[in-house]
Structure formats: C-alpha cells, structure tokens
C-alpha cells in the first residue's frame, strides 16, 4: 500500500508544489522561451544603462544659459560643434587614445610572462602566491593603490631617496604623463593576467616539449607555438586593458596633477566644474561611441577571445 502523502519529506512536498506552479504558469510549449525568461533580469538591469544613454543623448542637445545657469529648453547641436572643434578636447582625446595604446602594449608585455609562469609552474605554492599577489591589489581598489604610489614616487619618497643615495637630484616622478601611464599599467596588470591565463592553460605543455625536441630554442617555441595559441588570451586582455585605460578617471586625476586630463576627467570637469551638463553629456556620448566602435571593430576582426561568454563548442 502506498504511504500517505504526509509521509513524504517537507522538501519534496514544497518542490511538488513549486513544480505544479511552474507547470501552470509556464506551460511546456513555452519551453523554448525559458532562456529568455532566465535572461530577463539581467537584460532589465542593463536596460538601466540604456535608459541612461538616452538621457545623456537628450541632455547633450541642450546648452547652458550662463545668466540663470539652467539648461536650455530647445534642442541644438551647439555642444557637438564645440566638442569637435575646440582644441582642448582634441588634445585630451589624443592623449587618452595614445596613452591607452601604450598602456595596453606595456601591460601585455608584462602580464604574459607572469601568466605563463603562473600556469606552467609545477610548484603549487608559487602558483598560489602569484595568484594572491594578483588578487590582492585587484580587490584593494584604484584609490588606495594610487595613493600608495603618491607616497613612493613623491619628492621625498623612497625612490627619490634611493636616487639621492647615489647622488641624483630628486626627480619629478609624479604629476606628469609617464606617471599616469605607469599608474594605469600597474592597475591593469591583474585584468590582463586574468584574461591571458585561461588561454595559456589551454595550451598543452607537450606542444612546447615537442617543439623543443624538434630543435627549437625556447624563444622560437615562444614565438611560433605559445604566442599564436595564446591569441584568444591576448585579445581578451588587450580589449579589456584598452577600453579600461581609455576611459579611466582615477589615475589621471590622482597621479596627473591636474595637467594630464583624460577624456573621463574632461567629462567630469564639464559636469562638476563648469556645470555645463550639455557639453559633458556630449563628450560622454562621443566617448561611448568611440569605445563601442573600437570594441566592435576588434570583436569583428579578432573575435572576443577569452572575453566570450557563450556556449563552448565541443
């Protein structure tokens, strides 16, 4: 004889009720729409950003009236005119683009060996140490790290003291372009390593051994085997570092001394120094456009590399 319903555990009964509810609310013929249901919350959340973009676009078409300091009611393209013609913005844009390219190259060069060592080492302790050294700064945040460099590179900081020991006058190490680039590189390193490492893991060590046994020294192995196979990692890392450093705010602000503005700083200035929301929104929109075009271009040319989130083809 079957046991009474009440003999079933509570969790089973709850699950039964939930299943019945789900079956009623979502009949089987809608099963193909299940992924959309699952994607819905994320899509809605990101939708907030889309709303934000629309709002920015709307504000970018209004100008500031300096007698009342209110935004104009009518729409006008005057802000776009200013953004595209004033030399200040051209300078800042050029500085940001060139800077981010330099930072990307240097970061990739530094991150790759680190990722390689991390993946290839046989010592679990070393791997753990390298991972911790990577994650700790990642979790500490930009502001505290920039602040640490302010102390180290200042006129009376350790580096200048060391220089003093060997007789060099204190150098101005901060508040210039190299300082900002350096700050960006050290901030981007964890991102780059995290993007490159999965690709390196996928390369079997036997391939390198095989190349070696065929007569290639380690440099040739690196250039002809490892690098090409690690391409997805380099692409993923490159895209992330490029976009993040192009649009960074904290490093140019803290390490730049006010003369090394990047695009994000210029946008911030417009919103919070001159109170011209219209011009600030225009710059923000232009930056979004440039950023998206860049990423779209790179995706189309190279694919998303390790940045991809899709189903793994087996």
């Amino acid at each position, binding site marked *: 004889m079957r046991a009474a319903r009440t003999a079933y555990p509570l969790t089973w009964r709850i699950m039964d009720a939930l299943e019945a509810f789900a079956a009623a609310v979502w009949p089987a013929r809608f099963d193909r729409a299940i992924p959309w249901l699952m*994607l819905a919350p994320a899509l809605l959340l990101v939708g907030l*950003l889309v709303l934000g973009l629309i709002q*920015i676009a709307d504000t970018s078409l209004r100008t500031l009236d300096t007698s009342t300091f209110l935004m104009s009611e009518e729409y006008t393209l005057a802000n776009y005119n200013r953004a595209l013609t004033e030399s200040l913005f051209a300078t800042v844009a050029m500085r940001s683009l060139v800077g981010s390219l330099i930072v990307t190259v240097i970061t990739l060069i530094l991150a790759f060996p680190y990722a390689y060592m991390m993946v290839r080492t046989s010592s679990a302790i070393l791997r753990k140490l390298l991972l911790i050294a990577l994650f700790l700064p990642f979790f500490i945040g930009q502001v505290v790290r920039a602040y640490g460099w302010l102390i180290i590179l200042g006129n009376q900081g350790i580096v200048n003291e060391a220089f003093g020991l060997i007789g060099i006058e204190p150098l101005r190490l901060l508040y210039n372009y190299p300082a900002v680039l350096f700050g960006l590189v050290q901030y981007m390193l964890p991102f780059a390593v995290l993007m490159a*490492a999965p690709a390196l*893991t996928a390369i079997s060590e036997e391939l390198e051994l095989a190349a070696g046994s065929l007569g290639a020294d380690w440099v040739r192995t690196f250039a002809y085997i490892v690098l090409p196979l690690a391409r997805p990692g380099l692409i993923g890392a490159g895209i992330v570092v490029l976009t993040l450093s192009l649009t960074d705010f904290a490093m140019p602000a803290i390490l730049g001394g006010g003369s090394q503005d990047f695009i994000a700083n210029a946008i911030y200035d417009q919103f919070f120094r001159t109170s011209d929301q219209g011009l600030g929104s225009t710059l923000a929109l232009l930056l979004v456009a440039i950023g998206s075009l860049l990423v779209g271009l790179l995706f189309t040319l190279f694919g998303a590399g390790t940045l991809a989130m899709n189903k793994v083809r087996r």
Partner: protein
Amino acid sequence: MTGALSKKIVLWAFVITVLVMLSAPTIVVLGASFTAGNMITFPPEGLSLKWYARIAGASDLRDAFLRSLYVATICTLIAVPAGTLAGIALAKYAVRFQKTVQIYLLLPFTIPLIGSGIGLMLVLGEARLLGQLWPVGVACCVINLPFMIWAVSASAASLDPDLELAAANCGAPPLSTFFHVTLPAVVPGVISGSLLMFILALNEFLVSLLLVDARIVTLPVLIYNSIRSIITPDLAAISVVFIACAAAAVFLLDRLVGLDIFLKSK
C-alpha cells in the same frame, strides 16, 4: 616548466618586476599607517598604533565603511540571481540573437564607466532616487554584472548536459533538475562571481563619486576627497582596513572555490 636557464632568468625578471609593481603600494600604505609621526612617509618614523586608535573613534570613517558594506551587500544580492540565471542561460542554451544578447550584456564593459555613471546619475535623478543608498547598490550591480555572468557561464560551460538528461531520465521534473543538478554544478562560479561583485562594489569609486553626496558618502569616495585635502596617516590606516577586507575576500575565495578556477581554460 621546460626550458633553459636563460628562459628562467627572463621569466623571473618579468615576474619579479610585476610582483613589485603589484605589491609596492600595498606594503607602503601598510607601513605608513604605523607611523608615530604626523606626516605620511615610508619608511614610517617610529611605530605606533595611534592612527588606528584615531580611526576607531572617527565616526565619519566608520559610517562611510558601513555604508560601503551596505552597498556591496545590495549589489551582491541583486547580482546573484540575475547573473546566475543569465550565465546559465547563455552557457546552456543556443539562444537566437546570441551575439546581440552577448554584446548587449557586455554593455557595462563597453560603455565607459564615466558614461554609465553619468547616465545612471541622470536617470536616478529624474526618478528622484538620488540621495538614498540602495540605488548606489543597484548601480554597482549593473556596472559589474558582466563579471558575474562571466564567472557563472564559465562554470556552466563545463556542465555536462548528459547529467541533466540523466536526472530527467530518473523522473526529475524541470525545477528539481535545476535546483539539484544545474545549480550545484555552477556553485563555484556563483561563489567566485559573488565575491568578485562584493569586493568590486565595496571598492567602487567613480560611479559612487557621481551618485553619493555628503549624507551618504561611501568609503572610497571619502578617501578620495580626503586625499585631495591634507594627506594624514589616518587615511593610510583606513586603507589598511580595506586591504584587510581584500585579504579576507581572497582567503575566502581560495578556501571556498580555489583561486585556480581563474586559470581554467575557456
């Protein structure tokens, strides 16, 4: 690791350079917080815990820190369901318009942080929601969501579909399969994703700068404002609290999931 001595030397040179670059600020801030003097220097002038005593009593620092924790909690609470479902959906199912959805969900990455921040500031302002703390949590969630989805989809990608078929074969209805087979398999991704979200929200600086004001200032913004003022060692001390949180998170991440998960191939 294969290779000649020259390879080892070259590799180690790079690794040590990177290690120094990564750890130097942390060590310096740590050291400077123990100074007995009044100015921020490294090496510190004498050792003392007086700055820690100071921040323990500084109610504005403590309040800011609690607010940061609150924001991080809200962010993680929203991110976990939204990101997990999305990550599983993307990894398991072949959705139509797959590429478009991916690009759409990567928007928080492609839209520069300043653009997202300003957009959210304008939208939340219109909705009269500025001046409260929970919208900041939502904003932090939105801008970091790709991390969560990325972590979960990586875990879900290695889930063998046969397991779910086997469960169905044994008579498990869909929800049961989901809760008993799918979810446990992606738990590593969920855990690493949520730790990531929590810490990222705790440290979130730019978007918070735009969305908070004096009544609801969070700790990174407070530190930034103070850096632009006089830099005193109590800032170093409070930064050490941040470092401690980061260390705790790293430890947790390692304990629960293992840091190696980030090395897994894609």
